[in-house]
């Protein structure tokens, strides 16, 4: 046996835990969960869920009296709720409700409903906690209801009223946004909607009322299965129709760029040729907007991560992924200037963007039209950005807009009297600092523009 290391995010549920052995992720099931596991397996329920694409597939590795070990299908890169676009978040919420409805139909029930039970894999949301299923107890309310509200329903309704950025609140609340806070953040008019009033404001009131006098003696009350199904179904219908109020800021980004059509095509061609040349199979596009450039790559990629700071652009990309049924692309929201941190107990439960990216270690990184934002909006010096880009992949395709570029001018003008502090932003300094971390493979100027493309190889390359 190789070293068995318990996964640092897996300790809350006593039914079992996730561990890595060698480099393979496995799940240990404790005898406490045997009854459920056997029922789920023998009734064919697991198989149904897997076939319907709702639950991550797994295979049983070993089984004895002390425990069962299963090995789930490998997910190359796990994204977290605070990295999802609005419609991705909706899909995850709907998946959870769909599962609960299906569970009830088969006399099971989800015992928890955290948003971290879901991630995106092969182009869609998938449930990854194989041990979240329990037997349905007749006439008992849904134990995970409050969790569903604070992890899914609340954040989505907040996003509806306050914009998709509010989904990032989940970064601060690993166990969901507290219902009292949710209730206080809702616009007053939500109290006039019976549906929102009951699911948020009334819930918060009841939670408040019962938080003091709980001695474990008060009855949980009963709820028929039909009534629970009504809750699930009404939440599903409501979330399915929920839309953002804000208009897309960047949605038509490519119509706003200072590129001529020819320059755009040339850029596409360069990216395509260089990706081919490096024989890259895995990729991350940092600032990938709606995935346009990655989609133009005609070599086969195993996995492409496309992140962007703008939730709307990611959402457009996500819709594209869905309509084209692409299984290799994972769009997600990420701000390079403030990437997701590691959170949870011991800062170990959810991993930082950097940790996950280094582990994923994409063959190539695309940084198209981002360096001027990093340098001029984020005030990040070139040596720092070079260090960042050299830390996770072997190759980097980076586009450098020169000082004369209209976008650069715009960013510089915004600095008004401090413009002089940004004199460092020029081609010579860029090349000088980046060559400390990279060697130059290729360099090409885009015709009729003030932009240069570089193919760089990291000096730490494996």
């Amino acid at each position, binding site marked *: 046996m190789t070293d068995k290391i318990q996964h640092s995010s897996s300790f*809350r549920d*006593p*039914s079992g835990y996730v561990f890595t052995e060698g480099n393979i992720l496995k799940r240990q099931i404790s005898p406490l*969960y045997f009854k*459920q596991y056997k029922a789920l397996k023998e009734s064919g329920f697991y198989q*149904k869920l*897997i*076939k*319907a*694409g*709702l639950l991550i*597939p797994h295979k049983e590795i070993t089984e004895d009296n002390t425990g069962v070990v299963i090995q789930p299908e490998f997910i190359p890169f796990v994204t977290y709720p605070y990295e999802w676009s609005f*419609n991705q978040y*909706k*899909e995850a919420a*709907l998946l959870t*409700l*769909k599962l609960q*409805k*299906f569970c009830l139909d088969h006399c099971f029930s989800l*015992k*928890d409903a955290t948003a971290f039970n879901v991630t995106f894999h*092969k182009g869609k949301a998938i449930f990854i906690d194989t041990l979240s299923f*329990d037997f349905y107890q007749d006439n008992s*309310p849904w*134990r*995970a*209801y*409050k*969790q569903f*509200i604070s992890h899914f329903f609340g954040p989505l309704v907040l996003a509806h009223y306050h914009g998709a950025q509010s989904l990032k609140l989940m970064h601060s609340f690993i166990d969901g946004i507290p*219902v009292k806070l949710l209730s206080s953040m809702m616009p007053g008019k939500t109290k006039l909607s*019976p*549906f929102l009033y*009951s699911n948020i404001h*009334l*819930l918060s009131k*009841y*939670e408040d009322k*019962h*938080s003091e006098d*709980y001695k474990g003696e*008060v009855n*949980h*009350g*009963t*709820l028929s299965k039909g*009534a*629970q199904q*009504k*809750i*699930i*179904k*009404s939440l*599903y*219908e409501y979330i*399915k*129709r929920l839309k953002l109020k804000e208009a897309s800021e960047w949605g038509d980004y490519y119509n706003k760029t200072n590129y001529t059509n020819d320059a755009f095509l040339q850029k596409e061609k360069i990216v395509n040729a260089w990706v081919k040349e490096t024989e890259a199979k895995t990729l991350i596009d940092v600032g990938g907007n709606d995935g346009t450039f990655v989609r133009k790559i005609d070599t086969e990629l195993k996995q492409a991560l496309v992140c962007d700071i703008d939730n709307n652009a990611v959402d457009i990309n996500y*819709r594209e992924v*869905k309509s084209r049924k692409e299984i290799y692309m994972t769009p997600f929201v990420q701000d390079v200037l403030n990437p997701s941190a590691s959170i949870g107990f011991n800062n170990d439960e959810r991993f930082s963007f950097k940790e996950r990216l280094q582990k994923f270690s994409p063959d190539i990184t695309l940084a198209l039209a981002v360096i001027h934002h990093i340098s001029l909006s984020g005030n990040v010096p070139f040596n720092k950005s070079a260090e960042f880009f050299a830390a996770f992949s072997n190759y980097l395709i980076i586009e450098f807009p020169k000082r004369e570029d209209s976008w650069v001018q715009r960013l510089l003008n915004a600095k008004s009297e401090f413009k002089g502090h940004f004199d460092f932003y020029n081609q010579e300094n860029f090349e000088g600092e980046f060559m400390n971390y990279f060697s130059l493979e290729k360099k090409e100027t885009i015709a009729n523009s003030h932009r240069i493309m570089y193919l760089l190889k990291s000096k730490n390359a494996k």
Partner: protein
Amino acid sequence: MIHFLYFDPGLGAMVVQAVIAAVAGVVLFSKNLMFKIKSLFGFSQDKNEELFDDIDVTDKDIENTENSDR
């Protein structure tokens, strides 16, 4: 039951579900009624929002071999 060891579901959240279910029942009923009235007068539901399907897992979904081991 193992889930009692796991996390606190919130007593208030358990009790209040009876009220929420009653509201949900009314909401679903009226939506359904509106739908029927609308289709009676020939207003078809907008089909644009087809990004997500219905709550029910159908037999077709389960037979869908596309999702198994690929």
